[in-house]
């Protein structure tokens, strides 16, 4: 009976672990965030012998307000995500004011911006972002949709 109870406990623990693994990541709402300016025109980077063809870049600020109310008291990691679109890769490099981590992100990847216990209902910061891309755009306009996700411990 005791062995059966232990087995059941183990099964339950495995089930909970599996359930937790499936649950991550959790998409976070940062609808309070906004960019300055809201629309950006890329500029040519100077051509150099090391990067023939060069590429384009743009600078902007992002005032971030990430809703973490549902996770107060929980520990985990917050990532910024840039889904890959049908065009060439975009590289985002940013600095922060210190609440979130500075970093680098390429289309199709995610980068850690916060790790630890969630203590407040929002995570707020301002990023200064440099976007770079190659010259191989097919369209005349492109929309980037960044988002944040939380991996609970």
């Amino acid at each position, binding site marked *: 009976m005791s062995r059966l109870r232990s087995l059941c406990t183990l099964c339950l623990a495995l089930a909970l672990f599996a359930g937790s693994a499936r649950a991550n990541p959790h*998409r*976070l*709402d*940062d*609808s309070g*965030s*906004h*960019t300055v300016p*809201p*629309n*950006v*025109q*890329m*500029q*040519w980077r*100077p*051509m*150099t*012998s*090391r990067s*023939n*063809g*060069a590429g*384009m870049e*743009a600078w*902007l600020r*992002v005032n*971030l307000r990430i809703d973490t109310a549902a996770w107060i008291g929980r520990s985990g990691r917050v990532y910024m995500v840039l889904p890959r679109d049908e065009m060439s890769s975009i590289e985002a490099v940013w600095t922060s004011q210190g609440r979130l981590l500075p970093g680098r992100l390429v289309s199709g990847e995610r980068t850690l911006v916060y790790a630890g216990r969630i203590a407040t209902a929002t995570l707020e910061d301002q990023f200064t972002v440099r*976007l770079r891309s190659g*010259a*191989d*755009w*097919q*369209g*005349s*306009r*492109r*929309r*980037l*949709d*960044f*988002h*944040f996700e939380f991996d609970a411990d």
Partner: protein
Amino acid sequence: MKAHFVPARLSHLAASAGVLLLAVLQADVAHAWSLNLSPATRRVFLHVGNGTANQDNSTVNLVQVSVPAAQVGNGVAQAMASNSTQSTSLYGDGYTTCPTPSTQVMVGASYQRNNNSSPASATLRVTSPASLVSAAGDTIPFSQISWTVSAAGSPVPGVIPAGTFSGTAQTLATVPANTYIENCHTFSYANSALRAAGTYTGQVTYTLTSP
């Protein structure tokens, strides 16, 4: 008993579907920062002689030669000197492409565009008037002036070819999209005919265009 069990199971399945639907909706309403990006507009860059990378530079350099009276019209070509001081490349690496700018004029051109409907290349041209003219109204055909090309350390020193001014517009080179070409032009006067004494001047204009 059996009739009671089946509806209960159906009810459970329905609830699961409801949770799944809510989860999907929840994902849809989670907003994120978004940005509309416009690509850089196509750009051409050209410098002839002294230039500044990616900036305007209004300098017009002078190429000149004084032919000694005893040698006028003897058919021996006379090398022309330049007041250009541009020896380093504007290509970003600071390479000394034209090591003797006193006899060379560096010409560099680039064309940048996106992979959209913009033209695939730009065209480098030079336009010269029919003649150089003196204060007295005497003339020398511009076709008396030619140039050779070089580019230290370049595998394609003739990327912009050597030539002779024609007194009209001439196409010098095609610049493919997102490339930079440059080399050094050394000018000479053919000195193939007797001319009246005087100072003859004329100005040529280089253009880089993408239609």
